[in-house]
């Protein structure tokens, strides 16, 4: 009997996945709300603020998509997911897109049947350790106890790094960032490892951030980006090009303050901005949206650079430099395909 119940549950989950595989755009429009999977709380990337409103770098992507599709940046149902639940939530159709600092890997893309639509943050795995331990390199961590968030790529990178350097460690698997923080501060583990951006965000919430250092070694490539289900290319295109619109907007100098003015009528000197903002051509129509889709997406929190500065940039407690996440013209890796 027990067995049949679980089979039933699995089947229902399977049915939901099957039903949701096609026409996500129509579903979202009919529902009037975008279901967006985010993390359970990582300050700067996705966390509710004092008034309970979700704020952050990943949250901004969700809001931009909601603005493009539904003309309402607040029409987003944020679904907090853990490292373990995020893929099931997306595959089962519980959420329409996942923007939860998720690393783009081969097996997730190919084997788990997801579609990464781009990269919104180029990251790498780092180590945080209390200053008083006097460690200056990750290679000195022989014998240390390491807290890891379970169900992430960091687990595998960590094992690879220590094996490659022929040093030992004790892993402590932990479910959420908040729990890891507690264990680390209580001294139950010497080191906390996750993406360097996450470490910076976590350290920013400490009472004395200065007592902890992030070691210089970055042991992996972690391109973080939003993703959708395989098999609904129209929906994938919308999320992909909304992200690209934010990136292109920074490159082209379109900001939250001037987007309304620039989008009023076509300016013959800036054809690419015209196409982006829908005053020229019919790119919005090709996506199945209206001409103003990108204008609305940019108007929410500004272009990529503005979102970055507002949520995780150097003026925020998290204090991340642009680094790899600068525009290609400034030596970074951000390079949006042309709007044409």
């Amino acid at each position, binding site marked *: 009997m027990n067995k049949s119940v679980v089979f039933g549950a699995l089947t229902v989950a*399977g049915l939901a996945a099957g039903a949701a595989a096609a026409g996500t755009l129509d579903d979202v429009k009919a529902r009037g709300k975008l279901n967006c999977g985010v993390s359970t709380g990582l300050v700067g990337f996705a966390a509710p603020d004092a008034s309970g409103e979700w704020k952050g770098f990943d949250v901004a992507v969700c809001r931009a998509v909601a603005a493009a599709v539904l003309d309402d940046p607040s029409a987003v149902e944020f679904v907090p997911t853990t490292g*373990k639940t995020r893929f099931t939530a997306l595959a089962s159709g519980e959420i329409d897109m996942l923007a939860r600092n998720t690393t783009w890997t081969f*097996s997730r893309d190919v084997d788990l049947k997801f579609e990464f639509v781009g990269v919104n943050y180029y990251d790498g795995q780092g180590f945080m350790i209390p200053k008083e331990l006097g460690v200056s390199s990750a290679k000195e961590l022989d*014998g240390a106890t390491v807290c890891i968030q379970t169900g992430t790529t960091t687990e595998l990178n960590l094992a690879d790094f220590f094996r490659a350097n022929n040093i030992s460690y004790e892993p402590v698997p932990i479910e959420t960032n908040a729990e890891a923080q507690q264990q680390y501060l209580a001294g139950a583990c010497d080191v906390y490892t996750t993406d360097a951006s996450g470490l910076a965000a976590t350290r920013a919430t400490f009472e004395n951030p200065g007592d902890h250092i992030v070691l210089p070694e970055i042991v992996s490539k972690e391109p973080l980006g939003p993703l959708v289900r395989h098999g609904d290319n129209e929906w994938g295109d919308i999320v992909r090009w909304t992200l690209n619109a934010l990136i292109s907007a920074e490159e082209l100098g379109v900001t939250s303050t001037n987007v309304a003015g620039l989008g009023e009528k076509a300016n013959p000197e800036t054809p690419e901005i015209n196409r982006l903002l829908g005053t020229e051509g019919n790119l919005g129509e090709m996506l199945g949206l209206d001409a103003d889709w990108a204008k609305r997406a940019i108007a929410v929190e500004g272009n990529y650079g503005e979102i970055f500065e507002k949520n995780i940039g150097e003026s925020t407690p998290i204090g991340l430099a642009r680094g790899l996440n600068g525009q290609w013209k400034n030596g970074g890796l951000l390079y949006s395909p042309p709007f044409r």
Partner: protein
Amino acid sequence: MATLTDPPQESFQLSMLLNDTRYRSYTFQFIALIVLIAIMAYLMSNLFANLRAAGLNISYGFLTDPAGYDINQRLIEYDSQSTHLRAALVGILNTLLVASMACVTATILGVIAGVLRLSKNWLVSKLMAFYVEAFRNVPVFIWILMIGTFVTLSGDAPKAFLGENPSREMFLGGFAFTNRGLYMPAVTAGAGAGIVVLVFLASIVAAFWWRSHVKKTLFKTGKLLPAWVFWPILIVPAILAQLVLGSPLGLIAPDTMANRFNIQGGLLLGKPLIALWLALSVYTGAFIAENVRAGIQAVNRGQTEAAASLGLRPGRIMNLVVLPQALRVIIPPLISQYLNITKNSSLAIAVGYADITATLGGITLNQTGRAIECVLLLMLFYLTISLLISAVMNVYNKSVSLKER
């Protein structure tokens, strides 16, 4: 002329399936079975159709791939290059370890609390009532989290014990309670250790033979042989063997100098294991206490009074008269408590304990994305282990149940 008619022939007619009470229940059972099978088949075919549509298939090939992750507590050899199957095996052993430890302590705790709750001492009985009500009315998950946090916050970080001038000395030179667990001296086996162990095993057999011999002689001849010889027989030969062979079995204390982060060597009872073990024990112990109380109260008062009038002391009345009869009532619900412990141990990941749910159902499931396969395997494991526990406990139940002739 009298005509004899044959008694009416029992002929089966189709309408009897509905109208005859002898067959009607079978008809309905049969229909229910068909419907159940049809529903199952429909759900299964749906599952497979959807999996096919999503381009997924059910395959257990991933079990032989390298797992790629490390596990902090392992009873067998394992590293990140071992297979997922081996990781699952490590998890299974960890589950069995914590479940068997918790079964033993929960039983001891439960029996003590159950007996004491019936004590005539007001304070003791109320204290036990408080224990039972407090622990069984809070979810076990909360207890696991609370005890885990308690251990984390109550112990020192191992750093306090490390280095040339540690701020904390190890207890008795070999025990250190830290927020990562309890470090203890480990047993080392030199040449000839096997002999010492063999001698000890032999003396266990000899000691128990002596005990039964004493009993037999007492019943047969009425002569009371010295029963205390049991202990010397048990201990002395092994100690002699140890001394003669030049101490092949030794203790090695944890090393506080070898590493700057952790105490090395020795035996570590990890924090996750301690937290999970304690939480499962105290939680299930409260339920077992109630079973024990029910069992004792099920024994007629007359039994106690009769034993008392024979001049037995209260302790002996409990051990010789009441408990053996109470066991008949206690054992069946005790089986389900053991099953509960085993199943509740799947909450292990809350404190970072690497049981089967955390390895196969957690990290492996996540890294391979093979959710259905992993969950089916998990179900199979818990089902098997639960049925095994039931089978063993039922055998024991038979042996203590009332022998009806």
